[in-house]
């Protein structure tokens, strides 16, 4: 058949079906966010939420009617920043996980595995020990994440070409920074610093405020946009290194760039909401099941699914019991059995069906 016919039939149905699913996911995410704004110890009806959001987007001198001052404060000052941060965290982790799995051609890779999360945790915790401000903690996390990454690449080789070595090195670096965090906990003042360190490490959106929104949103949008634009190139990295190089790619440099961008996203997330694991690892698997392996759709899908997952988890964390459950614990408790199930399921089908 001619190219025109083929274009109309084959590409059309696959591509548009996936676009529809992506729009559905985006819609689900927005809907979940709006619903989540109403959930909590202080319930707010959806109609009120919509009105509040409308008033924020189109400010007018006339105060919106039919809602109380409490509702306004709860939604705009407490919940909205929290929802935004949890969405961005989830999207960042989902995106990072998908990118790393594509980069290393390995389903067992996540931001936690290559040492970035632990390095960022160390950096942030070190900053807390020094009594730094929020900006200081954030910077500390980014520096820590990049430091872990650099050590990883220095040991595994600047070319980053050997995947297994890189993953193993990531494990070593993670373990090292995990131990370093332990040391800091040991020397920290048990009355003042230690509780905040421990709570920070567990991962929580409870301290969300508008300044921390900026902290996580800017790196996510900058790095996330660049990663999405490179999604086709990421397809190419699934080839053998030599083959990819023969196609004209500078494989080592591309890997470095991608991991740097991922570090920015993950470190800013850790700085703002602490260590949240088991999201970057499992979300891409589900995204791949629905959307396939092409990163042009897989990356946005992983981001959207990650956002939905973390917002849902945070809703549970806030409402399941009287005391807030740290989200890092929740994602680990929920994530590990899911991952075990994924491993089981994929054992026969294979990461690639062969």
């Amino acid at each position: 058949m001619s190219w025109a016919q083929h274009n109309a039939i084959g590409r059309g149905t696959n591509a548009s079906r996936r676009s529809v699913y992506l729009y559905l996911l985006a819609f689900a995410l927005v809907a979940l966010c709006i619903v989540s704004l109403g959930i909590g110890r202080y319930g707010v009806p959806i109609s009120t939420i919509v009105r509040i959001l409308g008033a924020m987007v189109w400010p007018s001198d006339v105060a919106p009617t039919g809602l109380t001052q409490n509702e306004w404060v709860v939604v705009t000052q407490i919940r909205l920043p929290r929802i935004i941060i949890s969405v961005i965290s989830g999207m960042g982790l989902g995106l990072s996980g998908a990118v790393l799995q594509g980069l290393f051609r390995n389903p067992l890779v996540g931001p936690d595995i290559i040492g970035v999360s632990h390095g960022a945790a160390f950096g942030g915790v070190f900053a807390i020990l020094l009594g730094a401000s929020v900006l200081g903690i954030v910077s500390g996390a980014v520096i820590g994440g990049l430091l872990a990454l650099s050590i990883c690449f220095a040991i595994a080789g600047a070319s980053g070409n050997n995947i297994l070595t890189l993953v193993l090195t990531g494990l070593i670096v993670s373990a090292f920074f995990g131990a370093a965090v332990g040391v800091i906990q040991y020397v920290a003042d048990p009355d003042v610093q230690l509780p905040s360190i421990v709570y920070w490490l567990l991962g929580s959106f409870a301290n969300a405020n508008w300044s921390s929104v900026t902290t996580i949103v800017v790196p996510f949008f900058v790095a996330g946009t660049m990663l999405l634009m490179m999604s086709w190139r990421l397809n190419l990295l699934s080839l053998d290194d030599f083959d990819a190089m023969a196609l004209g790619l500078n494989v080592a440099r591309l890997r470095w760039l991608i991991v740097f961008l991922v570090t920015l996203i993950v470190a800013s997330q850790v700085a703002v909401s602490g260590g949240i694991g088991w999201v970057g690892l499992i979300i891409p698997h589900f995204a791949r099941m629905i959307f396939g392996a092409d990163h042009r759709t897989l990356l946005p899908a992983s981001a959207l699914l990650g956002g939905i997952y973390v917002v849902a988890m945070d809703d549970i964390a806030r409402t399941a019991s009287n005391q807030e459950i740290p989200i890092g614990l929740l994602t680990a408790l929920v994530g590990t059995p899911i991952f075990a199930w994924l491993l089981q399921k994929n054992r026969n089908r294979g990461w690639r069906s062969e």
Partner: protein
Amino acid sequence: MDTSVLGTAAVSFSGLGHAYISDSWIFRGYHASIKKGEVFAILGPNGRGKTTLLKILLGALQPSEGSLHVIGDLAFVPQLFQVSFDFSCLDMVLMGRARKVGLFSKPKASDVQAAFAALERLGIQHHAERPFHQLSGGQRQLVVFARAIAADAQILILDEPTSALDLENQKHVLLWIHTLSREDGLTVLMTTHHPHHAFAVADQALLMMGCERFEIGPAKDVLTKDALSDLYRVPMERVTFQHNGRATETLVPVFSDLRDNAT
């Protein structure tokens, strides 16, 4: 590059040698001149340095000594091909457009069209949307050829294109090598373990006899039974027979004396 010296050579090298560890030369002093549109076969037993030579030709490895001139874009066709992901054939071929697509860009409609055209050239366009791993070995090899064509390359470098294929697919791939060089004017450099393949399709051949020993020249002249027996350390015979009413020649290794020489 002084093209007047090279004439119509697409690829030429002289004094080419490489040692991964100093003084431990894989090969040394190699030279060749490969014309545009030629099929050039590189033969040698395992470990003689065929892959090293390929890497140097592709620019992936800097030779320890010697010079290499390449006119035109190169594309690499690896041996049978495992991918970690479920890409469609069209997506696989589309990867060949990598040099034309910027770092932050996605392939355009023209790129997709070129990919489809490459599949059409090889007569496998009906597999375009099928997952790559579902294809047979021979079909996959053709997809990888299509990828090289989609890259608009003038020079194809093939790494043992027939080694993992059954006989029918071997012949099919060899036919395409011949067609692409004669009809499309592509220069084809291929390593192979099969002298009869080189005999069937190559214009020139290079036998990697040893570190500084090599034979090079027109395939029919170089692929003699003595040279090949020396190369592979297995007796070879050049056999003439009738096929479709014409006298045809081929090369065969002599294995039929196995049973006599049982140890």
